[in-house]
């Protein structure tokens, strides 16, 4: 096992890439394991948000990929992460390089440590991109900055990563504690509204603005039939905390 799965009481699924010293784990093992986990998360309605974290020095070890490039292209962990229905936080405790970097930018929100460093050195090694970086990175930080990172392999420290919006939080203590605080805050929101917001934001960005606004309006009308919408408004007027059911 490389991906350790824990579900906490508030509905956060925590997947940790575990460093098993001496074991002979390949990318394939990791992919199959994650594919099963992601399927489990998809159908578990108690799971409201997901955190990916890692015990490795690099978020996803480069040596897992070596010699498996074609398999990686066809069986993408970054795609698995990006297709999760729930909000996904990547918690980088140490560094994120190469495929780990691509995993990181496939999430919705990134939290790192104030000592974290980021880089993408695939091209310098004569290797092509394997996890969607040429498409996801420009959408996050713009074309110029993406080319700078991808073509030069430059290292980016946490402060700069925050400044250019590569990460959204820099934790002063541990990244996982900050990530848990964020996920617990998400878990308190109405789950269907959370899923619809994620859908509207991510799908809408790939549409024209007019089409995106239409999608948002339809999701908003659909939401009017939910128990949680009534509960949200009722709790607001009665000055109490809402008790959302995800219905």
């Amino acid at each position, binding site marked *: 096992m490389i991906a350790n799965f824990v579900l906490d009481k508030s509905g956060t699924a925590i997947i940790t890439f575990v460093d098993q010293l001496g074991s002979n784990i390949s990318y394939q093992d990791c992919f199959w394991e994650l594919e099963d986990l992601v399927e489990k998360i998809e159908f578990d309605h108690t799971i409201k948000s997901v955190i990916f974290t890692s015990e490795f020095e690099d978020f996803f070890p480069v040596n897992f990929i070596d010699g498996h490039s074609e398999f990686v292209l066809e069986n993408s962990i970054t795609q698995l992460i990006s297709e999760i229905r729930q*909000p996904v936080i990547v918690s980088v405790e140490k560094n994120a390089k190469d495929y780990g970097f691509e995993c990181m930018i496939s999430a919705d929100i990134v939290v790192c440590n104030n000592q974290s460093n980021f880089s993408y050195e695939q091209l310098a090694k004569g290797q092509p991109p394997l996890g969607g970086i040429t498409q996801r990175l420009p959408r996050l930080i713009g074309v110029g900055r993406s080319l700078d990172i991808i073509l030069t392999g430059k290292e980016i420290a946490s402060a700069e990563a925050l400044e250019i919006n590569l990460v959204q939080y820099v934790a002063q203590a541990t990244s996982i504690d900050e990530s848990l605080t964020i996920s617990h805050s998400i878990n308190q929101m109405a789950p269907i509204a959370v899923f619809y917001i994620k859908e509207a934001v991510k799908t809408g*960005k790939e549409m024209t603005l007019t089409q995106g606004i239409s999608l948002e309006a339809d999701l908003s*009308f659909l939401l009017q039939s939910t128990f949680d919408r009534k509960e*949200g408004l009722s709790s607001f007027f009665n000055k109490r905390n809402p008790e959302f059911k995800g219905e």
Partner: protein
Amino acid sequence: MNQDASVVQYSTKGAIALISLNRPKQINAFNVQMRDELYEILSLFQKDDSVKVAIIKGNGPKGFCAGADLSEFGSAPSQIIAREVRWQRDLWGLFLKMQKPIIAQLHGFVIGSGIEIASFCDLRVATESAKFKMPESSLGLIPAAGGTQTLPRSIGTANSLKMLLTNFQVDAKTAKTIGLIDRIVDDEKLEQEVFLIARQMCNMQTNLVGSVKKLIRNALDHDISNGIVEEKFQSKKFLLS
């Protein structure tokens, strides 16, 4: 329109129109009457040849707009009718079609629909003490005035999700850093500074501004080569006019 009873006021000073949200006791909470009046006033502004730029502001000291008036939620007879009305009075579509520039003058609370209105404007100027928040998901709702679409285009997907999924409050400094607003001014100088910017914009030709606004708004909706062809076409049209 009786301006005293209006929840949106309209006045002009030279070539500058001033559109004021006028429910100060409710921190200008956005309601159906405001939607209808804003729709009328934006149409009027667009047709008024004596004005070239508008400033949209909120009356009262507490803020620009505290979001949607939740007391009206659920008042539509059905979701079907609510959807019909949404498209009959498509205020947000009208914002996108506006040829003339609109500046959002932001102070105090800028919450939910307040951010969404500002996001449809062309320039956002805020005071140092302004506060921004998107609380919809904490109320079992999602934004319904384009927020899930305009925010990712201005502050990126990740920052949008951070604001929309955690009800995270953003101060003016952070808002400027992430691109939610464009300028910060001292609290007491807001009106004066916005007026100066508006006066600068008055020097520009309305049809040229309208064409450039449209090109920029649509820039991310198609690939760059088509965008450049469209820009050349519009520029040629302007030069030959």
